[in-house]
């Protein structure tokens, strides 16, 4: 079983913490700190396994991998294969890449909920559910399509568009394209979308 998944950056700041057995929040922070202490002391080009007997008890293993500024950490017990876990980590990262188009740390910072959604499609209750990143990406896509754009995000776009100065400096063509893209990607409600289009029109002419 997989016991937990952690993403943290190279400063030790956690970006995602998911344990499949309940851990109190202080304990989680403590574990992240201890794991970071071990990881940051390891050189490059060494094996990806770390002994964590002292943190999680015997038979629990930890595998990690660095991607750019992030450490991805999987904690699992003896009913998982070590190399398969590395593959699964790869699947996770690939999926993130697909969902965010060249994922970087900021994407993960600002998409707390989406990253959890992605992870939930790959692992459920510590069991591996899906190992194909395409499948996961399309499942996540289906979920996000069913979600409306968060209201505050609408407000952002409105504020953005209604800013006259900005509009005047912009090429009209680009702006329309932008709004179209925003509308398509974030699944604007029709009402907001038409309102937005109207606003752009009035601003421009």
């Amino acid at each position, binding site marked *: 079983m997989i016991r937990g998944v952690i993403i943290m950056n190279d400063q030790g700041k956690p970006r*995602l913490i998911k344990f499949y057995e*309940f851990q109190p929040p202080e304990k989680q922070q403590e574990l992240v700190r201890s794991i970071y202490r071990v990881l940051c002391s390891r050189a490059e080009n*060494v094996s990806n396994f770390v002994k964590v007997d002292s943190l999680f008890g015997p038979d629990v293993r930890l595998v990690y991998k660095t991607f750019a500024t992030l450490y991805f950490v999987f904690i699992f017990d003896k009913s998982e294969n070590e190399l398969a876990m590395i593959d699964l980590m790869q699947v996770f990262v690939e999926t993130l890449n697909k969902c965010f188009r060249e994922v970087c740390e900021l994407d993960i910072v600002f998409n707390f909920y989406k990253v959890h959604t992605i992870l939930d499609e790959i692992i*459920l209750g510590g069991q591996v559910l899906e190992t194909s990143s395409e499948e996961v990406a399309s499942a996540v896509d289906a979920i996000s399509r069913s979600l409306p754009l968060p209201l505050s995000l609408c407000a952002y776009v409105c504020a953005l568009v209604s800013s006259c100065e900005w509009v005047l400096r912009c090429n009209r063509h680009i702006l329309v394209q932008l709004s179209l893209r925003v509308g398509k990607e974030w699944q604007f409600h029709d009402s907001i979308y038409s309102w937005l289009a109207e606003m752009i029109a009035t601003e421009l002419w």
Partner: protein
Amino acid sequence: MTGPSLMDSLFQRSIDDLIKALRLTPPGTETAFVAKAIDEIRREIKSTDPHTKAAALQKLTYLHSLHGLDMSWAAFHSVELSSSSAHSHKRTAYLSAALAFNPATTDVILLLTHQLRKDLSSPNVHDVSLALSTLSSICNTDLARDLTPELFTLLSSSKVTVRKKAIATVLRVFECYPDAVRVCFKRVVENLENSDLGILSAVVGLFCELTENEPRSYLPLAPEFYKILVDCKNNWVLIKVLKIFAKLAPLEPRLGKRVVEPICEIMKTMGAKSLVFECVRTILTSLSEHDSAVKLAVSKVREFLSEDDPNLKYLGLQALAIVAQKDILAVVENKDLVVKALSDSDLNIRLEALRLVMCMVSEDNVMEICRILISHALKSDPEFCNEILGFILLTCGRNYYEVVFDFDWYVLFLGEMARVPHCQKGDEIATQLIDIGMRVKDARSQLVNVARELVIDPALLGNPFMHAVLSAAAWVSGEYIKLSRNPFEIMEALLQPRTSLLNPSVRAIYIHSAFKVLMFCVHSYLKLNGEESLIPSTLIDSELVSDVEVDDHNMIVTNGQAPSASSVTHHLTQESLLALVNLVEINLGPLAGSNEVEVLERSTNVLGLIKLIKPMLLGSLNDGEGDQTKGELKAPETVKLIFDSYSEDLGPVSVNAQEKVPIPNGLVLKENLDDLEEICGDMKLPLLTSFSLVRSQFAEASNSAEWQGKEESELSTESTSLLAEHRKRHGLYYLSPGNRVTTSNDYPPAHDPNDKAIDEDEDLAKLTEKSLVTGKKPSQSKPRPMVVKFDDGEVTTVATNRTEVKAGLISGAVNEVLLGDEATTSSSSRRKPPKSRRGTGDSNVSITESKSDASKIDQSEHSKAGLGGSKHNGHGKERRRRNSGKDKEHDRKDEHKSESVAHGKHRSRHRADKAVEAQAPVIPDFLL
């Protein structure tokens, strides 16, 4: 989307705002910022507007998950929001529940039951999968019990994603509520035949987890797993199936024979390293009796070891470690690669290699290996260096120095290890030095040499890690001073000014050792001058004199130290002795005012002795005849007495020695010491390697004593502090303290005064004889010195494991379902009424309905086919029809499942006739 709500949310900080603001806060002010944010959230979360509430909960969940903030106070808000009709709000609410709810303590989880049930049966796939993943995170007994019917339905859902998520969730439900097995297990097993890889992978994963705890119950499913092993080509599924077989194969040798071939085939043909590694591990752990397969696996391991990928190297070494337990030759074959890995840049790999190297240690190569390792230790970083030292100490010290043949070498080697620059294993080295001193008589002279080297070096005193070793060295020098070449030199070393760097407890040992050295010198001097009638012969017990003489003589002969011993006596003149006494007095005088109790007491002891003997020495210098007054005459006698009390050999003490102390006459022990168990319940037994500095007489006396009463066994596990506490409370049952305190100023052995006065050498010999019989003796040119050891078994109390109990419940239910015992079916139906009574409201109906539904299926299938009951009804019929023509007793080579169905059927009927309450699982006939 109304105006006000848009306005509201415009001014509410969203989660993105929060994250941005958090990133902008200067370091140090973060806590204050978070506290402010929490205040804001507390306000917003009470809002009736679901958007505002959801946004607040989002922020709170974020802060909880990544900043470790407590959000248990908001649990109810999560529950509230989960009933929102908007999927996004539901998602927020469920995620917060999954991340923050503690299944054991969060009360409001029960309030989620209804909403979860609704979502589990919702037509929206997203709602269902959301509810499933939440359930798997927060599942507790109540939730599992109440939602089992819904889960049962989902297990045959037509939607693949839902079905595989339901299967993954079932694991948690089984763990929380083993009775769910009776309801759901059949459907789970049906899914083993599913052609969809996702579902198959989920089911196999589930079984992999289940077999982990109680593999025997799943033996009847072996044919299904076998089919997957042969047919499936997916790596993930195969890995899990291999894990299952690794658990099942040791239980049933015929199964091992069956699977070993396909596994080897997979190993040869498949490219994926993860799969190959799993095959290797399965063979090495569970199929190690199949030589050709093991050979193939070891060759694969060799491939791993020669790879550049550090992960493969690391895993390869781990695989070798598995083999090492059974077949050390496989490790020796790959010795070159292992030794090469010892200088790898990766600490993990080096550690594994080190472990393997230590596996290879035997009596023949221990010296060579240790020499190589210590040179490795010298040039590696401190951490690994200490790992190496730790491993050497552990391996050499194992089982009373089993592998050490030449103790002179080992003692020297211990000294060498102590001097390794980064050594932090001082405690262990010290333990072994003293332990060898007590256990191995023949090693003592070399031990004294090593100790001298250590004590005499002033540079070592500055290293705090060395202090433990130094205290052991000081103790050895004091205890075995008669083997020393030059006691004066030792005395100087023990009193050197830099000893002030030592901590008080070590210093006390130094001073006490100095005391012993002084005693020895004075006594030797008195003995030398004995014939010069310095001491009137009447004062000396003739027996004692002869005793000591014999003893010294023996010592000289056995250790071949005649010249040195005589050189000691040559140095002993009155002047030199007086100088020595003065030296001690000058150095220890100031310590009589020390704040440290130990130091104070020891130094006062020495000074007291000096006070006693100095007039005598001065008197003999002056050669005054009138000095032989009564008070002075006492001095030599006292010296003799003290010296004698110190000249007894110390021996190791068994951990169980206390049990063997005879109960003195007149001591009434309380009949029942049950109340002691409360105190000692959580005490752990001390390690076997521990020793205590008690006179060996004590151990021996206790050894020869007979076992008296079981009640005493508890006593052995008590630590001294607990004993003291107990003594305070139940003083009645202890000897009065007056009995224990003896009036003389020497150190009496802490044992029963009426000791049996058995000659200790004789007893030691007896003890070692025992160990000689049991221990194997290799034929080598030089006989191995004897090591004193006790062979008493450790008494350990095994606490029952709660998880095991739970696993037992699951496997019990699995057995019932798989074996289809009529008796058990009826028992499960008997158990039903209380279950439904526990349910609430309308849930009641659905539970009983589906349960009776399930049990109906149970009964109909049980009666027809035992093992085949696992299959779907329709399939079962079809197969049965196909089977009807076949001869059931033959066609054993056909491993097709239908055959096992037939046999299972046959068996179950047979069993039903006999009405046997089957406990052991049926072993499928295909294995024969």
